[in-house]
């Protein structure tokens, strides 16, 4: 199923992010997905060598999850593959019955664990979206015909509502919509006010937007994100709250509550939520309960 069908039906679409391991032991990931996510999220994003750290592939992991009865979203970045490999992987996804894509430019190579690698960026999020759209129309990027019935996907992309240059991000969002993006997931939001004013402006594009949240685990993580992660800013009062009750922060409870509060505040302003739990998949049901988001099936 394509998740655009859910948006069309007016569902509040819930997704979570899972990262393939560095290695082929995937039992743990599957177990967590069944235990905590199956009844709480509509679909699972599978990251593509996230943060430029080499891991098992997104496409293969998507196929494993699909065989387990879960709905995967295949994340594809332009960092490691040129246009030939990218288009080929998109067709491979169709062959494996993977119908949901999230198309990204990708972090730079030097941010990860193979800083010596060649950064590719032959395409970017916009031209990759365009390429997928061309495949759906029956042609590759060079204009050659694709045999048989063309594939059909739900084409997603990301946007950064709390970026310090949100106008530049909105211009890019417009370019993505023009190229064929059908839904957006946002970068982690900690400032609902900024999200509201972003959504005011993003409305004009008429494309569903899922609020992105990252569970704030502890003070150190928040400070790190404030210094290093683009488009993410954890306000001081939130950091203070994490500081106050060290025991409850240690157990994760404060972060879980803060995360739920953001979803609760924002959920009437958007079309769904995308949770980046960074290993805390087990806390997702609790967060959704606190935020008043009902189970999906």
């Amino acid at each position: 199923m394509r998740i655009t069908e859910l948006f069309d039906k007016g569902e509040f679409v819930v997704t979570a992010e899972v990262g393939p391991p560095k290695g082929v032991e995937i039992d743990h990931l599957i177990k967590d997905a069944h235990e905590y996510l199956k009844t709480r999220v509509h679909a699972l994003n599978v990251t593509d060598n996230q943060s430029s750290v080499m891991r098992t592939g997104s496409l293969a992991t998507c196929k494993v999850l699909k065989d387990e009865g879960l709905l995967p979203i295949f994340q594809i970045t332009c960092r490691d593959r040129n246009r030939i490999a990218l288009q080929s992987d998109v067709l491979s996804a169709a062959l494996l019955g993977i119908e949901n894509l999230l198309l990204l430019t990708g972090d730079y190579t030097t941010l990860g664990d193979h800083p010596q690698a060649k950064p590719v960026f032959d395409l970017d999020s916009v031209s990759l979206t365009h390429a997928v759209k061309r495949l759906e129309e029956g042609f590759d990027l060079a204009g050659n015909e694709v045999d048989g019935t063309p594939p059909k996907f739900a084409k997603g992309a990301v946007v950064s509502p709390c970026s310090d240059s949100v106008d530049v991000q909105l211009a890019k969002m417009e370019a993505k919509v023009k190229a064929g993006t059908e839904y957006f997931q946002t970068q982690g939001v900690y400032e609902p006010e900024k999200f509201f004013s972003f959504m005011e402006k993003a409305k004009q594009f008429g494309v569903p937007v899922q609020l992105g949240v990252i569970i704030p685990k502890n003070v150190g993580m928040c400070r790190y994100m404030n210094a290093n992660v683009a488009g993410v800013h954890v306000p001081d009062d939130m950091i203070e709250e994490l500081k106050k009750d060290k025991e409850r922060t240690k157990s994760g409870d404060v972060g879980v509550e803060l995360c739920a509060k953001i979803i609760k505040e924002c959920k009437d302003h958007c079309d769904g939520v995308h949770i980046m739990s960074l290993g805390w998949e087990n806390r997702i049901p609790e967060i959704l309960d606190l935020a008043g988001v009902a189970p999906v099936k």
Partner: protein
Amino acid sequence: MLITQLKSKETIESLAKGKTFIINCHGCKEVYFAEHEADTLQKELCEAKEVAQIVTTDYICNPDNLALQLKKHKDTIEACDTILVFSCGVGIQTVADMFTDKHVYSCCDTYPLPGFQGVTPLNVDCGQCGECYLNFTGGICPITACSKSLVNGQCGGAKNGMCEVDKDMECGWERIYRKLEKLDKLDTLKYEPKVRNYWNPNEEIEDKQ
């Protein structure tokens, strides 16, 4: 060694909006410049468009030299809306840098040829991409000013206006956006998705020789 090719006549004609000042750069031995074709095309432009003046000079990639060469044309340039530049990518960017309130357009695409690059630029750089994008990006080169050489807009990595790859470097797309904003030309960013062409026809010419 570089080679510059003229953009198509239609493209160049469409760029010559309003009162237009034309700068040719012939100075540098390292750049092959299509002198004759440029001359013919500019003569036609003079008839069809409002060309205030054509200046042919050298080493416009050096900002001090450029300022000196254009000194006596200051008033004419002041009265113009558009500056068309026939030079390599570095030359165009130097002109765009100097006249931030004018529409500075590139009339050439720059390709590399084997050999070394000429005069070392001070502030700007050209990656010789072969399909100059400067006319879409406010005269700031997306190939060299953006770490990922993106041609369809900013990635999600900029923080406080700085690039995710190098925190000491201003994000090239932030600069492009601000420049176009200042020129009231943000609409030029609403182009169809661009896909780069890494196929350099001149390499084949070299191969055959």
